[in-house]
């Protein structure tokens, strides 16, 4: 598999108010192949969101290199779709107008992309909601709109930053299934950040484990579960072994004796 996103020794340090340098990410290197689904897991504060925003060109990095499709990332790019932790929809725009926001900003033909937006909305189960306002939708529906907005201009890469973190477990599972369907339809290169180990395994081809403070690459775990996956794959022994492996990489459950 040829690599599409490539990180080479990416390091990020912040300067705190006390004039001290705080290391957020240290020497992170990994690759994501074209059309591959890769997740980044780690405890909160391990710099996984920072890592994703660096790849999106939203935050500058201190040293190392980030390449997408062979070119160095120097700022936001039009070949990336970003889904944030919160839906961040504009409350004065309808669902359809929200999904067409990037089209307006990028100066793409509204007619053509309007149909595309409507298509994607139909497929994520929001057929009758084009003219509703965000405050009329549930949290899960709002996040579906945000995903549609990230897909509408057909970027090669989809970056998702704990997109379902604020939702309840059941909505989360159904959105995970939907995300897999979208991924197999559109064949995007996906990088998904989460703190849920099982979510990461369920979705991904490979899981990148980050250790906290500073964020360092623990290992990259290959997920060799067959696709298409159904929710009951989580009950299999292979799934449990993978979860155990990642948990030990992240150093969870070692110092504590475990929970009965």
């Amino acid at each position, binding site marked *: 598999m040829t690599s599409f996103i490539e990180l080479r020794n990416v390091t990020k340090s912040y300067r705190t108010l006390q004039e001290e340098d705080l290391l957020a990410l240290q020497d992170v290197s990994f690759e994501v192949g074209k059309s591959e689904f890769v997740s980044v897991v780690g405890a909160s504060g391990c710099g996984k969101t920072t890592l994703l925003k660096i790849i*999106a060109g*939203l935050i500058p990095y201190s040293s190392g290199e980030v390449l997408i499709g062979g070119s160095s990332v120097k*700022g*936001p*790019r*039009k070949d*990336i779709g*970003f889904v*944030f932790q*919160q839906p*961040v929809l*504009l*409350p*004065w725009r309808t669902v359809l107008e929200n999904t067409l*926001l*990037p089209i*307006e*900003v*990028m100066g793409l033909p509204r007619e053509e992309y309007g149909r595309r937006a409507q298509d994607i909305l139909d497929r994520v189960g929001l057929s009758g909601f084009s003219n509703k*306002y*965000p*405050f009329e939708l549930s949290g899960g529906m709002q996040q579906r709109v945000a995903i549609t907005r990230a897909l509408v*201009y057909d970027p090669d890469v989809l970056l998702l930053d704990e997109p379902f973190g604020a939702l309840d477990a059941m909505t989360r599972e159904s959105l995970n299934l939907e995300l897999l369907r979208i991924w197999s339809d559109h064949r995007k290169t996906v990088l998904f950040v989460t703190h849920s180990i099982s979510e990461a395994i369920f979705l991904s081809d490979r899981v990148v484990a980050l250790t906290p403070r500073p964020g360092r690459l623990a290992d990259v775990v290959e997920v060799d579960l067959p696709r298409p996956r159904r929710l009951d794959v989580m009950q299999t022994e292979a799934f449990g072994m993978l979860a155990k492996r990642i948990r030990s990489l992240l150093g969870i459950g070692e110092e504590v004796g475990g929970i009965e």
Partner: protein
Amino acid sequence: MSKLFQKEWVCSVCLLAVLLVIWEVTVKYFEVPFFLLPAPSGVLTSLRDGLSESLTSRVGFYLHTYYTVSEALLGFLIGSGLGLILGTLIAQSPFVGRVFLPYIVAFQSLPKVALAPLLIVWFGVGMTSKVVIVAMLTFFPLLVNSIAGFESVDRDLLEMMRSFKATRWQIFCKVRFPSALPFIFAGLSMAIVYSLIGAIVGEFIGGRHGLGILILQMNFNMDMQGVFSVFVVLSVIGIAFYLAMRLIERRVVFWASRSRDVIEL
């Protein structure tokens, strides 16, 4: 919800009726002199007289109302317009904001009404001086509120726009300005009330036309019924101004009260 609202309305009107009756009875029973406190029935008579005068009569309401409302609205448009423009410009650069801040605070703490006599000297006893007073009064609510509005913009929305490679101007038009609108309307609601105050104060200092002048003349003639009837006219104008503003606000920033915590009046 609407039923409860109607119930409140009925209670408000009943309360008014009861208070008016108590007022009427008290004035009649204790034989309060007419030049101290007129009875509501007398005020009603004056109100009817004032309304039945011709449009150009100097003792009727229409001519004076025309002047006062024109001064208030013209001053409101100029003052709030300038306040909005300057506030928007200041908010685009934190540096400029910090340079202007001491002046804004100094001018805001100055009672603008204190400048009214000076403005009469500068701009004469005509409409211009009143328009200037109103403009000064309505300038600051818009200046301060628009700056606060632009500062309140959700950082996540700005980052979202950046992820699409949006330009500064696109971010301003599509996110920053609409985000500031609820604050701008809070300023407009305040300014529209101030505009009437400014016009009346200006007329008190000196002028030929306006409801403020009418009050002064009636006061001089010990026509307290008339003075009270002008109060009624003024409060009707004030309520109309405010309700019109709220109506526009509800149409323009319809999303504000439902998607975030805005204090409803």
